[in-house]
């Protein structure tokens, strides 16, 4: 077992502490939508929601980027950064496959749903960037695309 393997469960627990203290007011979920029609957007939609959480079901940090960060990153206004997210390990964490929706089928859509004081009714974000370069945390960058749909 590597040092990383030993640290991840502890870090996962530590990252839940702000949530336990009520300092993580925004809930984050990955929303995958399947459409029964021939074209995305047609027919009956089926929504699958996977909450993005740290230990105990508490959400990761959500931060809206500053104008300077948006300009340097060539991002749309309102871009948000989610993380640090603890990588997966036996017993918890979030996998790269989950964040990239690598198992999604052609035509399915994938969004990040953020609900909290910034978006009381929830808002959908398109994931425009992922940072998997670090061993102990992941980050997601997303831009708003609409109001939340589904449950």
């Amino acid at each position: 077992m590597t040092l990383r393997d030993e640290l991840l469960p502890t870090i996962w627990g530590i990252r839940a502490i702000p949530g336990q203290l009520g300092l993580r007011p925004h809930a984050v979920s990955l929303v995958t939508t399947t459409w029964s029609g021939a074209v995305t957007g047609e027919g009956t939609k089926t929504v699958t929601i996977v909450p993005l959480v740290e230990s105990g079901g508490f959400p990761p940090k959500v931060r809206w980027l500053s104008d300077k960060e948006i300009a340097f990153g060539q991002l749309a206004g309102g871009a948000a950064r989610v993380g640090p997210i603890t990588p997966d390990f036996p017993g918890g964490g979030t996998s790269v496959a989950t964040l990239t929706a690598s198992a999604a089928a052609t035509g399915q859509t994938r969004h990040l749903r953020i609900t909290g004081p910034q978006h009381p009714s929830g808002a959908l974000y398109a994931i425009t960037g992922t940072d998997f370069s670090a061993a102990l945390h992941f980050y997601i960058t997303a831009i708003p695309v609409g109001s939340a749909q589904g449950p």
Partner: protein
Amino acid sequence: MSADSLFQNVGAQALPVSDGDVVDTLAPLDKARDGMLALFASALNDELSGGWDNVAALVPSLAGTQPVADTFPGAPSPEHLAQRKFGFPCLFLSRDGQADIDEFTLWEDRFVQAWGLHYILNPLDVGNIRKLGDVLVRVATVCMQVVRNMRHLSYLRGAYPMPSWGISMWRIRNVNAGQAKFAGTDTPPTYAAMSMALETTELTGWNDELFPTFTGFAMSLGTGTSEGLISPIVQADSEVPLVLG
């Protein structure tokens, strides 16, 4: 249905829109886009599959695909690519930019629309570009021939679909093939792609709903004085004989 409608058409888009036109999306209001996309995809898969199957099998990310594995009735913008799972190679078609409107005849206006047709292979390394990159020009020439012939036998059994789309004329304005970035972004990845600018013309016309009880007409035009009439000087009938009384 609105009784106050203009009862006019622009291409296949008829006013007023009736409930029967749509079910769960307004996409049927633009029959031309979905129809053109299906025609091009069908033609490309029919014409290119023979060579494609052998070579695509050697490229893991494209093994088992058709020349057009996925279609999308929209632009290949970063926002779309970030939200939807695309199968590659993917064919995109959308109305692109402004349309020109001018008078075509005394009673008809024309709506001249630019379209963007994009065929995206995938981000490919230099070795796989050697294997598959030359298909980009073939995609352009197949589309060119489809536009010339206005149909393809693999689509709707070779029927001429343009009248049902409301398209009176279409032409290709230009083609680019090679490495591409989309929607002005400088961020990776770079795609191997073909982009074609098309132009269609849609004409205005009357919607027959304006004259729901009209069956035909007869006209008789004469002249004369109080001493008598010379009639008829001009007599005309519609093709449908009128049954009077």
